[in-house]
């Protein structure tokens, strides 16, 4: 299974925080504890950290280890 660069995963997580339009709800701050399946690849001589959400909640001996990440975002204004 392919893994996205960490930046893409984080942006997707932040995008998911938006309340549905028309509800009048505004999310100003959020904190997330999420498991990430991460790997570091050497691409073009540099390390690139890729991390995606696990594709299953089951644990087994042949899945990549899960790294727990804590993420806090806030209104940028």
């Amino acid at each position, binding site marked *: 299974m392919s893994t996205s660069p960490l930046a893409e995963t984080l942006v997707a997580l932040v995008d998911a925080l938006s309340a549905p339009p028309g509800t009048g709800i505004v999310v100003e701050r959020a904190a997330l504890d999420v498991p990430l399946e991460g790997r570091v690849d050497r691409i073009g001589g540099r390390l*690139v950290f890729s991390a995606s959400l696990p594709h299953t909640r089951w644990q087994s001996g042949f899945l990549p*280890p899960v790294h727990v990440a804590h993420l806090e975002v806030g209104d*940028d204004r």
Partner: protein
Amino acid sequence: MTGEGGFLVEDFLDAVSAQLDRTQDALAAKAKVRPLMFALRTFAVDLQVFVTMDADGNVRLRSAAPGESGASTLKVDFTTITRPMVEENTVSLAMAQAPSLRDAGLDSQQQRALERVGVHNVAQLQALRASGAGVDGIARLTEGLVPADRLRAALRAGRPEIFHVAPVPPAPPLPAPAAAAPEAPLLVPPGTQRLQLVGRNLLAAGTAPTVTLAGQPLETSAADDDGLIVHLPPGRRAGALEIDLGDGDPVVYHLGIDDGNGRVAESWTPEAAS
């Protein structure tokens, strides 16, 4: 994660911070078209890794593979900091431009011995010596791996030097003595307002050398590791041009006005450099 050999901690941190920069850039771009936007304030991750040390003494990480047990947990926290905090915690550009320990002729074992006490280049070695540790003290800190005579040689290799001084803009080619060695007369055309000083390691101490003309400090308009531009004061174009490189042994030029025939039009009596 990467396979054999693992990766250095600093390379890993660099990889994560590059991804966080990309995240912030993407979020900032979205803020241009959306009324409410988020910024990433904190990111922390618990990594399951195996920690090893290679033959060079570098700590390396290797991520746990599927099914591997007994991994260590490396907790890494990233947070947003302000520009002043970055500047406070970052080695100055001048310090970073200083000659490396390898450039100064130290072998890899000696480099590692110095790096263990926080010295990564000659400027930091000079700063440690100037802090009161002294060359012999530094040699003891390295448990004798870097003898005092090697440290002195490295310090000599990285000390600031002035090669020559010339008027700005460059005058038509003058006779050889114009690109004067210290203590030789340095003749500049009438009306010269600025001097260019060419050398190396001029910012090694973190600040530009002090330049005086007949005891009067000259304003520095540009400074980098290889050269300085200084302004001559109005009405004064001759005298002892003294360049203090911070080593207690100032370089002195005898600055005079060229009368057009290679002679000094404005006389000057040199003073002994202190």
